[in-house]
């Protein structure tokens, strides 16, 4: 390979062909049955278990683990799916170290929690390998029609629960396939073997959900029209926009959106065709920054540096994820912020960073000290935004998110919202699933009351 001084080195195929499948294999391989048995036996079957309290979807964790230990993995999976129909994906991507496993009494006692996430995967994978459909039956048809906009975790969860209650759901998604961030936004090594799509199929197997892809709100889909033609609408559109650095040369070659590139990795038929710089700089401190940084390293970049403007303890990425990055060879540089993008022949060549300090009020300011990192690629992972103009102007938005009540109702009486686009969430798959579930129950209650009121008034007229 010739290396010209004039251009950056962003050649694809930096690895031996076998290395791709190895680097992008399962982060946590499935527990073998005996391993699962031994791990399940570690569970104390706590009363009013702290893990269950910590689970955003309130899965009965002691119960499902006990079912594994008594040799009933299908029953275990049903326990999980009752609360979380995307239990399979959550088992892979949940930051369990800050949720159920953080409060596991064995974590408290000995620093070694029961591997709840991996046991959940054992049960759900076992079920999905042996069954084509979800374990639930639909209630009698209600004749109600609900539009769910966005087929990510929140939308899938909502649609499934509504279908269980006997409602008919139309599930729209802007992309050409369903799954949302499960399909396009999660690091490949967390969801191998096309799991996201297999899970979509599993969810849709309940029946009564019509999936319509390529339908984008504000494009070929209109909220007012959806409201007019459906009994209720659930918005789970996610965050379609990406925050900008607001620096000169941001539109030059090599300055990229991390979200887009992660999607490219997930959708790539051949990872060896993706361009990979030798020197990579990732700007941000969340899970997206980690996901892009680790995967670039796995694709063969020489050095990958995450630059974050505050201290490492302030990063949104969990401690576990930070360690995963560091043990993968990613450097985390903290207390620096982008100052200037340096381009050469229309392509990024380096980035100038300014060191930062935080004053006693927590305000961040530059110190006037600068450093420069060579960069063939700079990835922006500084947060995503709601594309507000796609929505109805009458919907209440605060802090760039849709305002919802405890039961995920918006200010519009026939519109609910959940997932990343709604205010107050934690931007996790599992909280999105819970949003969808809560909204579905609320929609179901509202429509049932409506039906009841209609019957009553009809009876009054005819009586």
């Amino acid at each position: 390979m010739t290396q010209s001084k004039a251009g950056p080195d962003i050649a694809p195929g930096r690895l031996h062909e076998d290395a791709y499948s190895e680097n992008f294999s399962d982060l946590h391989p499935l527990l073998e049955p005996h391993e699962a048995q031994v791990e399940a036996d570690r569970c104390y079957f706590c009363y009013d278990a702290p893990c269950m309290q910590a689970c955003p979807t309130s899965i009965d964790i002691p119960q499902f683990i006990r079912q594994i230990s008594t040799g009933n993995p299908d029953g275990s999976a049903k326990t999980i799916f009752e609360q979380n129909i995307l239990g399979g994906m959550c088992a892979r991507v949940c930051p369990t170290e800050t949720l159920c496993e953080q409060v596991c009494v064995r974590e408290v006692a000995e620093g070694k929690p029961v591997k709840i996430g991996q046991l959940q995967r054992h049960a759900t994978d076992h079920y999905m390998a042996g069954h084509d459909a979800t374990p639930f039956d639909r209630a009698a048809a209600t004749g109600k029609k609900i539009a769910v906009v966005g087929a990510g975790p929140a939308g899938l969860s909502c649609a499934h629960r509504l279908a269980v209650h006997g409602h008919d759901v139309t599930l729209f998604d802007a992309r050409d396939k369903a799954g949302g961030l499960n399909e396009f936004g999660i690091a490949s090594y967390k969801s191998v073997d096309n799991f996201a799509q297999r899970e979509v199929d599993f969810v849709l197997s309940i029946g009564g959900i019509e999936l319509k892809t390529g339908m984008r709100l504000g494009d070929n889909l209109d909220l007012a029209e959806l409201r007019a033609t459906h009994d209720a609408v659930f918005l789970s559109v996610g965050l379609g926009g990406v925050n900008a650095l607001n620096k000169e040369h941001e539109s030059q070659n090599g300055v990229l959106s991390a979200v887009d590139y992660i999607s490219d990795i997930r959708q790539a038929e051949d990872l060896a065709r993706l361009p990979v710089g030798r020197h990579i700089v990732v700007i941000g401190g969340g899970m997206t920054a980690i996901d892009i940084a680790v995967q670039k390293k796995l694709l063969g970049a020489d050095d990958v540096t995450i630059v974050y403007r505050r201290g490492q303890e302030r990063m949104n990425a969990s401690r576990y994820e930070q360690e995963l990055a560091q043990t993968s060879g990613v450097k985390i540089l903290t207390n620096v912020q982008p100052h200037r993008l340096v381009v050469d022949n229309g392509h990024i060549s380096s980035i100038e960073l300014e060191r930062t300090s935080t004053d006693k009020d927590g305000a961040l300011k530059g110190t006037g000290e600068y450093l420069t990192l060579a960069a063939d690629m700079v990835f922006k992972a500084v947060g995503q935004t709601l594309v507000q103009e796609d929505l109805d102007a009458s919907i209440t938005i605060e802090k760039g998110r849709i305002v919802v009540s405890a039961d995920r109702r918006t200010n519009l009486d026939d519109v609910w919202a959940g997932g990343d686009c709604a205010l107050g969430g934690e931007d996790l798959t599992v909280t999105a699933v819970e949003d969808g579930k809560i909204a579905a129950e609320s929609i179901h209650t509202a429509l049932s009351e409506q039906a009841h009121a209609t019957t009553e008034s009809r009876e009054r007229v005819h009586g």
Partner: protein
Amino acid sequence: MADLRTNFIGIKSPNPFWLASAPPTDKEYNVVRAFKAGWGGVVWKTLGEDPAIVNVNGPRYGAIHGKDRQLIGLNNIELITDRPLEVNLQEIKQVKRDWPDRALVVSLMVPCEEQNWINILKRVEDTGADGVELNFGCPHGMSERGMGSAVGQVPEYIEMVTRWVKQHSRMPCIVKLTPNITDVRKPAQAAKAGGADAVSLINTINSIMGVDLDIMSPSPSVDGKGAHGGYCGPAVKPIALNMVAEIARDPVTHGLPISGIGGVTNWRDAAEFMALGAGSVQVCTAAMTYGFKVVEDMIEGLSDWMDSKGHTSVDQFIGSAVPNVSDWQYLNLNYIAKAKIDQDLCIQCGRCHIACEDTSHQAITNMVDGARRFEVIDEECVGCNLCVSVCPVEDCITMEPMAAGSIDPRTKKVVDKDYANWTTHPNNPMAVKDAAE
């Protein structure tokens, strides 16, 4: 290092750890390996009459597993030795000659006819073996032929055969008892009456290990059928300890030497049997689970423990716990204990709470001032020890005796310093009023 040398009814061994009559002692090869590993003695696997019996060729063992497939109970349907009598006798003779310092006892089982016993005793005596153990215990196969536990369940037969053995042999005689009876004192008394030098117990317990729900057969399954077998291993130890203690404290059999058997897996188990009166212990399942090396921990552990207690020989503690084995009616009803939870050790699993709340006395909180916290409510606690039993953390919950003179918050009564039991309790219609001092 304490002296572990043992003299059990005149049979000497370098330590009290013998291998029980069972598969590990069926052949010279195994027994020599055991002696090399350090076992103090063996009871050779039960000899019978020729032609040798046959065994099933399918599974002979079934198991109960605990966590991580730890074996906690084993059962077997193997019979007595299936090798020709002469082969066994030759090997016994050779082994005794090669290992004169080890105990070598021969287990026997022949039909209940005097002549049959005379015949076999003569041949065993010729081997130079240290003694005989009469197998009146095996609950499967042989019992269907009128031997094993079929004899052990009829005290009169035990006495009769024991008498024959003592009459026709100079060898020390141990009678091995079956636990498949209602009162183990009766067969022990019979053995003593017949002149036995000692009893050994327990043999295995009648058991079905499980049911294969796919083929609806007891497990282990031999071609679709299962038969009850003999249960042993760590799970049977409490049953064995009780039976040993019953014989040790029975006025008729008190002082009769006992070889303790039943789930001995480590030095502590052995020490417990010995504290309840056993002069030696016999081991099988632990060896069959882990190999002969387990004796090393038994020897060193017992020795270290004896050193820590100042015992220089095993005789100094054998039977030490027997005087404290009592009957319920003599337990001190004025002794009052309350559970106490060490909040620093508590990991907040809540098992103590739910066990007490659902199944006992509602004496443990789960919330205090709105926070998850488990505390004993002394006003409700009867001191039952269930919470201690279910707590996964050692020493987190303890039973604390109440001081005499203090007030029991549950009964509002003063804790009496004096001993008082049921025999004198006012609620006892049979109370011996005048006996109270």
